[in-house]
C-alpha cells in the first residue's frame, strides 16, 4: 500500500478496555488481547515485539526518555517484511558503500520517526544488534545513517530489527539529488554569514564616520575608515553579492525583467560612485548601506529556500512508501530481490495487497487487480492466465505468478514517468509577481533619473546633477521589496506545511491567488481519489428485503470492493448465518456462490450470473440496463438460478465535495473533470458535485489528459486564466507537471508527488479550498508589503530629487523600510492563524 503511514490508528483499538493501556504505545488494550495474569499488556503483536526487543537489549530507559520528551506516546509499527532483498549484491552495490576499516554504511529513511525518543532508540541500535557500529538519526528528515560490520551482521538483519522497533527502513533513492541540495544549502548559508559579518563591521565603521559628521573627525581617520569601508563593501559585492549580478545578467540575456536587475543596478551605481568619492576624498560613500542591503536580501532568500527545501523533504518522506523489492522465482524457490535485479522473462510472485513490480503476463493464478492509480478506473479488473498486468497496479484477491515482459523505464509506468519529465520541461515560464513589478520599476526609475539629471544639469550644473542622480538611483533600490516577497512566501510555506499543505514552489501560491471571478481559471480535477474515494457504496436495492442479510453473510469473507460495500451496508452478519452457509465458492472478481437455507445463492456481476446459467427475467434486465445507463455498477442476487434482486452501487464522494466545488466556482474557478474512468460514472459524479456535464470527460488516457492540459496552457499568457490540475494517480502525473500549478492529493502515486507543486495531505479537495485561501492571504500581504516598500521608495526618490538625501537620511530610511516590511510579514503569521482556526472549526 502506498499510504501505509497511518497504519496504527485503526479500528482494532476501537473497543479497548478503558483502564488498561498498552505498555509499549499507551493505546487501550483490546479485550481479546487482554491477559489478566501477564506482567505487561500490549494492544497488538507489533507492540509486544517492539517491547521484547527493547527490553531484551536492556534499553527500558527508552520509556523514561519518551515520557520526558513527549506528552503522548505514539510509537508506530513496522511492516513486518523480511528485508531479504537487502542482502543481494545488486542492492548492496546500489544503496550502500564501504567505509574505512571494511565497514559498510547506508542511509535509510525510517517510517514512523516522530520524536526525540525515536532518536534515542535508533541511535542505541549498536546495543540491540551486535555488529552495528554506528547509527545516527536526523529527526527532521527521518534519515538514519547506519554503519555496520558486514562480517558480523547482514543488512537484512539490521533492517528487520529496525522494523521490529517500529521503524520500517527504506533505502534513500534520491541521495545524489540530496547531496546537491545539501551543497547548495551550505553555499547559501556561507553567503549569508559572510554578508552578515561584512555588513556588521561596515556598520561599525559607518558609526565612526557618522559620529565624525556631528563631532568632527580628523582627516586621517576619516580617510582610514572610508578606505576600510570601501574594502569591506567591495568584498560584500563581489562574494555574497555576486549572486544578484549573475541573476540580473541571466535575466537580461533572456530579455526578462526581474527584481535582481534594479537591485544589481543600484548596487553597481552605489559602488562606482562610492569608489569615486573615496578616491577623490569627497562626498558620500555608500558602502555601509550596500553591504547591509546585500545581507538583508540574502537572509530573505535563505529563509524562503529553507522552507521550500523542508516541503521537498516532507514530500520525499511520502515517496519512499512504495516497496522496492519483489519475490522472484529462481529455480525451485522464491527469492526476495530488489526490483533492479528483475529482468525480462523472470517470473515473480505477487501476493494480495502487494503492488506489481514490473509489467508482465499472468502465468498462474486468477485475481482481481486495482489499476486505478494507473488508469483512473475505479472498479477492479479481473485477471486470469494470459492477461497482462502493469507495474504499480495492486493485486487484490489472490496470489499471482507473473512472467516479466518489461522492467524499469520500459514499463507503462516508466513511460508515463518520461511523459512527466517532458511535461516539466515544456512548462511555461512563470513571470513572478515581484519580477512583473520590477519591469515597471526599472522604467519609472530610469525615467525619473533622466529627468532629474536634465533638470539639475540645466539649473545648477553637471556635478551637482550627477551627485543627486546617483543618490536617487541608490535610494530607489527596491531593497524592501526584494526582502518582502521571499519573507512573505517563507512564512506562507511554513503556515501551509503546518496545516498539511506542502508547497514546493512559492510561485504556485502567486498563481493560485490570481484567480478571481473577474479573472477565471481552469481547475482540472481527476475523479478517482480526488472527487471520489474509490470505495464503492450500495445505492439502491431492488428486490426482497429478506435476502439482504444473506447477501452480507455470503460476501463477508470476500476482499472485493463490491463485497465490502455490500457488507458495510447490509451487515452486521450474525455467526449463525455464516455457520449455515455451505459450499461457499468465490470466483475472483466475478462473484460468490454458496448454499444457504433459502437455496443456492449467487451474488455477482450480471455476466457471471449468465455464465452460471442463471435466468434473468425481463424486468430485472431493465433494472440492470437502467442502472448502467445512469452510471451505476450493477450486481445481481440469484436464488436457485433465478435473479431475485438487483443492486446498484456507486463510487463514494469525498466528504463535502459539493460544497467545496461550489466555493471554488464562486471564487472564479471553472472546474473540469478529466478521468480515466468510464464516461457514465464520470457524468454521475459531475452531477453529484455540481459540475456541468459538458465539463466532465471520461475514458481519457494519460496522454489525452496531458493533451488537454497543454491545450489550456498553450493560449498565450494574459488571454487565459491559470490552469491548475488536481490529481493523485500515475495517470495524472504528466498533466500535473504540465499545468501551471500541479496539486497532488494524499494517497497519490510517487511520480505524481514528484511532479506536483503542492501536496495536500488529505484526500479530496477540502484542502484545496484552504490552499486557495492561503494563497490569497499570502498575496494580500505581499501586495501590502509591496505598497509599503514602494511608498518608501517614493519618499526617498522625492528627497533625492529635492537634493535632501544625505547618507544619514539614507541610513535611517533603509532600516525603517526593512523593519516595516519585516513586521508586516510577521503579522501575517498571526492573522493567518486566527483565520485558519475559524475556518477549521466546522470539521
Amino acid at each position, binding site marked *: 500500500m502506498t499510504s501505509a503511514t497511518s497504519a496504527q490508528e485503526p479500528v482494532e483499538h476501537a473497543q479497548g478496555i478503558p483502564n488498561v493501556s498498552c505498555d509499549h504505545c499507551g493505546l487501550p488494550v483490546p479485550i481479546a488481547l487482554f491477559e489478566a495474569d501477564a506482567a505487561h499488556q500490549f494492544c497488538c503483536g507489533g507492540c509486544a515485539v517492539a517491547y521484547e526487543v527493547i527490553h531484551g537489549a536492556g534499553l527500558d530507559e527508552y520509556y523514561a526518555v519518551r515520557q520526558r520528551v513527549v506528552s503522548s506516546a505514539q510509537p508506530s509499527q513496522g511492516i513486518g517484511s523480511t528485508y531479504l532483498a537487502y542482502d543481494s549484491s545488486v542492492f548492496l552495490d546500489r544503496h550502500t558503500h564501504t567505509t574505512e*576499516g571494511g565497514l559498510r554504511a547506508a542511509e535509510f529513511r525510517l517510517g514512523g520517526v516522530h520524536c526525540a525518543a525515536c*532518536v534515542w532508540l535508533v541511535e542505541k541500535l*549498536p546495543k540491540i544488534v551486535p555488529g552495528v*557500529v554506528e547509527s545516527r538519526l536526523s529527526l*527532521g528528515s527521518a534519515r538514519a545513517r547506519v554503519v555496520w560490520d558486514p562480517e558480523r551482521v547482514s543488512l537484512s538483519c539490521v533492517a528487520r530489527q529496525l522494523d521490529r522497533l517500529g521503524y520500517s527502513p527504506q533505502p534513500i533513492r534520491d541521495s545524489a539529488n540530496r547531496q546537491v541540495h545539501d551543497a547548495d544549502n*551550505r553555499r547559501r548559508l556561507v553567503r549569508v554569514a559572510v554578508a552578515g559579518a561584512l555588513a556588521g563591521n561596515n556598520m561599525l565603521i559607518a558609526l565612526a564616520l557618522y559620529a565624525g559628521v556631528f563631532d568632527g573627525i580628523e582627516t586621517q581617520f576619516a580617510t582610514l575608515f572610508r578606505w*576600510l569601508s570601501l574594502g569591506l563593501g567591495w568584498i560584500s559585492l563581489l562574494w555574497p553579492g555576486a549572486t544578484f549580478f549573475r541573476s540580473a545578467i541571466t535575466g537580461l540575456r533572456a530579455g526578462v525583467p526581474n527584481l535582481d536587475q534594479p537591485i544589481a543596478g543600484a548596487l553597481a551605481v552605489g559602488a562606482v560612485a562610492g569608489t569615486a568619492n573615496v578616491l577623490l576624498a569627497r562626498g558620500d560613500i555608500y558602502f555601509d548601506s550596500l553591504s547591509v542591503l546585500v545581507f538583508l536580501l540574502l537572509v530573505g532568500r535563505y529563509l524562503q529556500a529553507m522552507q521550500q527545501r523542508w516541503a521537498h523533504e516532507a514530500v520525499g518522506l511520502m515517496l519512499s512508501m512504495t516497496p522496492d523489492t519483489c519475490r522472484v522465482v529462481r529455480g525451485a524457490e522464491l527469492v526476495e530481490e530488489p526490483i533492479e535485479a528483475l529482468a525480462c522473462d523472470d517470473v515473480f510472485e505477487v501476493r494480495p495487497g502487494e503492488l506489481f513490480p514490473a509489467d508482465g503476463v499472468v502465468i498462474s493464478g486468477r485475481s482481481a487487480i486495482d489499476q486505478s492509480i494507473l488508469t483512473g478506473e475505479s472498479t477492479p479488473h479481473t485477471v486470469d492466465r494470459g492477461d497482462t498486468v502493469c507495474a504499480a497496479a495492486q493485486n487484490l484477491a489472490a496470489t499471482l505468478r507473473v512472467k516479466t515482459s518489461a522492467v524499469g523505464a520500459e514499463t507503462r509506468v516508466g513511460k508515463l514517468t518520461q511523459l512527466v519529465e517532458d511535461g516539466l520541461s515544456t512548462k511555461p515560464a512563470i513571470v513572478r509577481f515581484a519580477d512583473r513589478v520590477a519591469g515597471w520599476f526599472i522604467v519609472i526609475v530610469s525615467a525619473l533619473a533622466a529627468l532629474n539629471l536634465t533638470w539639475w544639469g540645466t539649473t545648477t550644473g553637471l556635478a551637482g546633477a550627477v551627485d543627486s542622480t546617483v543618490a536617487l538611483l541608490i535610494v530607489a533600490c527596491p531593497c524592501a521589496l526584494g526582502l518582502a516577497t521571499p519573507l512573505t512566501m517563507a512564512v506562507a510555506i511554513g503556515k501551509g506545511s503546518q496545516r498539511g499543505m506542502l508547497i514546493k514552489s512559492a510561485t504556485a501560491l502567486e498563481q493560485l491567488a490570481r484567480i478571481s471571478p473577474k479573472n477565471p481559471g481552469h481547475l482540472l480535477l481527476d475523479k478517482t481519489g480526488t472527487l471520489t474515494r474509490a470505495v464503492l457504496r450500495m445505492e439502491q436495492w431492488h428486490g426482497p428485503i429478506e435476502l439482504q442479510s444473506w447477501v452480507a453473510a455470503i460476501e463477508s469473507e470476500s476482499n472485493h470492493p463490491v463485497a465490502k460495500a455490500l457488507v458495510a451496508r447490509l451487515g452486521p452478519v450474525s455467526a449463525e448465518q455464516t455457520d449455515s452457509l455451505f459450499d461457499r465458492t468465490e470466483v475472483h472478481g466475478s462473484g460468490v456462490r454458496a448454499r444457504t437455507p433459502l437455496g443456492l445463492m449467487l451474488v455477482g456481476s450480471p455476466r457471471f450470473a449468465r455464465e452460471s446459467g442463471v435466468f434473468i427475467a425481463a424486468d430485472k434486465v431493465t433494472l440492470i440496463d437502467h442502472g448502467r445507463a445512469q452510471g451505476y455498477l450493477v450486481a445481481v442476487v440469484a436464488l436457485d438460478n433465478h435473479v431475485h434482486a438487483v443492486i446498484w452501487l456507486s463510487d463514494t464522494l469525498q466528504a463535502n465535495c459539493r460544497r467545496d466545488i461550489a466555493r471554488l466556482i464562486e471564487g472564479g474557478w471553472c472546474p473540469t473533470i478529466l478521468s480515466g474512468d468510464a464516461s457514465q460514472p464520470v457524468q454521475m459524479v459531475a452531477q453529484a458535485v455540481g459540475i456541468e456535464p459538458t465539463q466532465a470527460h471520461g475514458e481519457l488516457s494519460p496522454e489525452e489528459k496531458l493533451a488537454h492540459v497543454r491545450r489550456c496552457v498553450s493560449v498565450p499568457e494574459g488571454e487565459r486564466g491559470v490552469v491548475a490540475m488536481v490529481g493523485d494517480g500515475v495517470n495524472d502525473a504528466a498533466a500535473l507537471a504540465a499545468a501551471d500549478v500541479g496539486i497532488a492529493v494524499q494517497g497519490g502515486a510517487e511520480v505524481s508527488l514528484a511532479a506536483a507543486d503542492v501536496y495536500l495531505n488529505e484526500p479530496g479537495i477540502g484542502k484545496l479550498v484552504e490552499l486557495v485561501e492561503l494563497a490569497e492571504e499570502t498575496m494580500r500581504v505581499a501586495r501590502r508589503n509591496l505598497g509599503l516598500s514602494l511608498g518608501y521608495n517614493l519618499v526617498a526618490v522625492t528627497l533625492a530629487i529635492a537634493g535632501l538625501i544625505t547618507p544619514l537620511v539614507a541610513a535611517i530610511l533603509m532600516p525603517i523600510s526593512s523593519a516595516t516590511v519585516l513586521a508586516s510579514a510577521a503579522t501575517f503569521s498571526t492573522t493567518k492563524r486566527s483565520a485558519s482556526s475559524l475556518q477549521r472549526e466546522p470539521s
Partner: protein
Amino acid sequence: MSVVFIMAPIALVLAAVAVVGFVWAARDGQFDDVETPKHRILFDDPPPKADVTDKR
C-alpha cells in the same frame, strides 16, 4: 600614527577569523541538521562514537 591604524585592521582580522571558522563549520556539514543535536544533548549517555568519521 594613531593606535587606531593598528587596532582597526586587527579587529577586522579577528572578524575574518570568525568568518573563516563559520565557513569551515558550514562546509563540514555542521548546519545540515539543526534539529536532532538539540535533543541528542539531553540523552544521558551519548551513543558510542564510531572510529570512522564520514567526511563529505
